[in-house]
């Protein structure tokens, strides 16, 4: 009887604990419309390494959106999606705990897909590295734009599947010493489930520290543009909002997010498009005059010389780093997106004010973060000399779609020319096989009536031509938009040069459209890069 009483008490205590735990907020509160926009919390590497413990959690917020948050405890407070800052050559140790719980989403899924990932050829000691089932509660992490190894515990998104309740999973890799200083980012990449998690806000910035010419001493803004959806009655994503550092940008329906700038003070802005499907045409406007900004880096790659632009188009996953001119006295500014023509059957991509800029004479602006001295990048930055390199292979690929109705569900394809279009499944063999040392020119066409956004893991590519016309000053990107086909005439295309010379990237990884919904819907394929006999 006494034992039974004990058991009953234990059960009650457990039940109360579970009830209290479930009543707690899993994700930090997000800022209300009309609030001051502040930079995400910076976490700097110390003595050559950065160790971070993060938990991916989900919860429907008071705003009725489903939040997916990378939660980090800082001085006893729960912080969302900190910015990771490391020098070239530094070690990142990121321990990710998956605490995703049902309910996972606010709208039903579109189509059943093959969600089983076969075991890799060589079984890994860690169970989370051996494929298995991708469930709505499964996650993993992609270090977007990083030129690191496609292997478990580094940047593998094929076989690495972290299940809810698993012990913390350790990502552990070195920032390549010859990587460029610039903006990168981290986000989930479980095939078929990435849209829900990224739309929920699971993303954060990562910087490889270093000097970018012209930015020394400038106040730095880190702006992460995300997108959240709330359409509980339909499987169509439907109405959505852009957010700036988690604050909804709803003007004129609600006050804009805002920042305070010191009059006349240039600022260094580092903007990440972490939306799942929004192409941003960014512009800084003072009064009614669009401003010319100095773009100093794109997709984490410094530009030399900088580009003077009064509008910067960045596709989903793109980054732009630029110097904003000082706000003239007694003026206000607006940072906005002008919208983007996604094509006859593309998602609506309307103009939207993102934040307001108010001036001040006092020093109320946030000071630049106190950054430890960064290590210099190795002598020969990655991808140097690619422009004059002789390609060893050329390939043709194309994006296309097949839908059963105007609302979908749509099958999304990325296909090597001559092959049969098909929806990507995780157990597919590689569509492309190449070898370390290969330099390849890929022409990617868009046969669809909506824009797509080409992205490849592990490497940046050099944009050589658009619609067959050589680009005058080719730059490196890891994501690039291809406009919609107009319905007649040649298909829009880009030609890019791939550098597979780094032996560290040997393995199998993916390329896909970075409209996450399309990626989840099958617009993805594998590339296998075999080690070279020469190494």
């Amino acid at each position, binding site marked *: 009887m006494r034992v039974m009483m004990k058991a009953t008490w234990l059960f009650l205590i457990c039940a109360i604990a579970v009830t209290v735990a479930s009543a707690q907020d899993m994700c930090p509160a997000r800022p209300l419309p009309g609030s001051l926009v502040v930079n995400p919390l910076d976490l700097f590497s110390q003595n050559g390494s950065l160790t971070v413990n993060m938990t991916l959690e989900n919860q429907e917020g008071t705003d009725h959106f489903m939040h997916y948050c990378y939660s980090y405890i800082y001085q006893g407070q729960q912080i969302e999606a900190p910015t990771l800052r490391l020098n070239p050559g530094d070690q990142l140790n990121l321990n990710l705990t998956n605490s995703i719980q049902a309910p996972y989403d606010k709208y039903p899924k579109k189509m059943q897909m093959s969600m089983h990932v076969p075991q890799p050829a060589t079984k890994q000691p860690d169970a989370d590295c051996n494929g298995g089932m991708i469930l709505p509660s499964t996650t993993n992490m992609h270090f977007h734009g990083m030129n690191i190894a496609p292997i478990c515990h580094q940047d593998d998104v094929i076989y690495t599947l972290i299940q809810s309740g698993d012990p913390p999973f350790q990502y552990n890799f070195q920032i390549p010493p010859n990587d460029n200083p610039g903006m990168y980012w981290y986000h989930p990449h479980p095939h078929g489930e990435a849209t829900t998690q990224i739309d929920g806000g699971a993303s954060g910035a990562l910087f490889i520290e270093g000097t970018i010419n012209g930015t020394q001493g400038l106040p730095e803004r880190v702006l992460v543009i995300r997108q959240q959806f709330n359409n509980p009655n339909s499987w169509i994503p439907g109405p959505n909002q852009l957010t700036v550092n988690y604050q909804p940008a709803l003007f004129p329906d609600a006050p804009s997010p805002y920042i305070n700038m010191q009059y006349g003070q240039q600022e260094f802005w580092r903007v990440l498009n972490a939306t799942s499907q929004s192409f941003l045409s960014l512009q800084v406007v003072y009064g009614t005059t669009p401003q010319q900004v100095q773009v100093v880096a794109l997709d984490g790659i410094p530009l030399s010389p900088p580009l003077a632009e009064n509008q910067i188009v960045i596709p989903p996953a793109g980054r732009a780093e630029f110097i904003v001119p000082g706000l003239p006295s007694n003026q206000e500014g607006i940072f906005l997106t002008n919208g983007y023509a996604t094509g006859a059957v593309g998602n609506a991509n309307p103009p939207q004010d993102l934040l307001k800029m108010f001036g001040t004479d006092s020093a109320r602006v946030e000071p630049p973060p106190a950054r430890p001295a960064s290590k210099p990048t190795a002598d020969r930055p990655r991808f140097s000399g690619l422009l004059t390199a002789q390609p060893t292979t050329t390939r043709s690929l194309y994006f296309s779609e097949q839908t*059963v109705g*105007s609302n979908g569900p749509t099958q999304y*394809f990325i296909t090597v020319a001559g092959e049969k279009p098909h929806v990507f499944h995780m157990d597919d063999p590689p569509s492309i096989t190449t070898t370390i040392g290969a330099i390849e020119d890929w022409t990617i066409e868009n046969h669809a009536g909506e824009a797509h956004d080409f992205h490849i893991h592990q490497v940046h590519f050099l944009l050589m031509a658009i619609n067959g016309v050589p680009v005058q000053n080719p730059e490196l990107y890891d994501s690039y938009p291809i406009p919609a086909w107009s319905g007649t005439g040649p298909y829009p295309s880009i030609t890019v040069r791939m550098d597979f010379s780094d032996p560290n990237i040997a393995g199998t990884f993916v390329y896909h459209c970075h409209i996450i919904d399309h990626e989840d819907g099958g617009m993805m394929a594998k590339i296998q890069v075999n080690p070279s006999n020469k190494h």
Partner: protein
Amino acid sequence: MKQLLIALMVVSALIAPAVLCSANKSKPSTSPIYVFTNDDALRHTYSSVYLAGGSQGSPTLTFQQSINTTGLGIGGGFFGTPRLAMLPSSSAQCLFVSDAGSSDIAAINIQTQTVLGTFQGSTNDNGTSNGIGMVMNQNYLYAGYTLSNTIATFSIGAGCQLSFLGDIAVTPLNGGWIAGMALNGNVLVVAYIDGSIQSFNTASGIPTSNNDEQNATGFASAYFPDSVDITQDGHFAIFGDAAVPTTVEVSDLSSGKLAPTVLYILGAATNAIGPGINSATARLSPDESLIYISNSQNGYVTAAFFNRNTGKVTGGCNSPQLANFYNPWAYVGSLQTRDTTGTGNVLYVAEFGSSIGIVNVTSTGTACTLTESAASPVTDDLSPGLLSIQVFPPRPF
């Protein structure tokens, strides 16, 4: 004398309709031909009415009026879902228009072009995701609701009044939803847009499965039947596939059940260049010599020759890309023939975005042409996403 007068009156009463009918037969062009739309607008959806006209080789459509169904639409959905239903007879009196947003069905008197009422199935029946498809015979109307995956049965009474009898749930094999529907005699054939198809027996009113649910042959290639048509004799079911090449599938229905489909790939099979991106809607010509196919995603119409005795499909012809594709309209929806005999001579094509395309048909039996009329397209201003149209008088099966 009185008896003679009565006899004359009886004879006159018997002869008059025949005389009128023969007059109609000799002058078919005098009978007005109407095209009805399901405008499927998010607010206050309408059925717009157009009068067919023009001359040989230069057909036209002239807007008549828009009839407020009093319901709500959703502005799009599955290509193969038939959102208008009419008895396949020149004596049809009722036109039914589905309101997917409000999950009801509006009944319209074809002659007076007035709404006679709106009708709902059970509270479970919901078509708000991708529309409500309908087929009917003299006695029953069957409505397929895309979100609830249910088929509701209504009996059709006087004055086009519907009475809900009950509904059944359908279970597509691969997680899809009901889209295409066709009815011939007591056989109802449906397509689930996930590659699976099924037929039902409607002899007792509410459908019962024929236990023939199966994946179509195209499923292995990710070609998904979206629309359905059935030959007049009920021998073959024809499916238009959502597929990268222009693809139709034919199933032998002569046993009363769907036989495994035979796949016919008509368009570019790999690179999807040129005609042949998505053949989601397919419809037989009145003489069953041609299958008309909407290439929904690249703005073309294809005609393929069909042998109604063997069920075999062979290559035919493609239209040019229809005018204004992607600017402003985006998808080719359902198509209907103007005439009730022969090839139908003229095709009316629902253009999502929104307009009606007009295409001339010629056929020698072994070769054909599809050319767009100079008067095409005709705008359908009240529709944000036109996918379904219906012609009166309709094809007679």
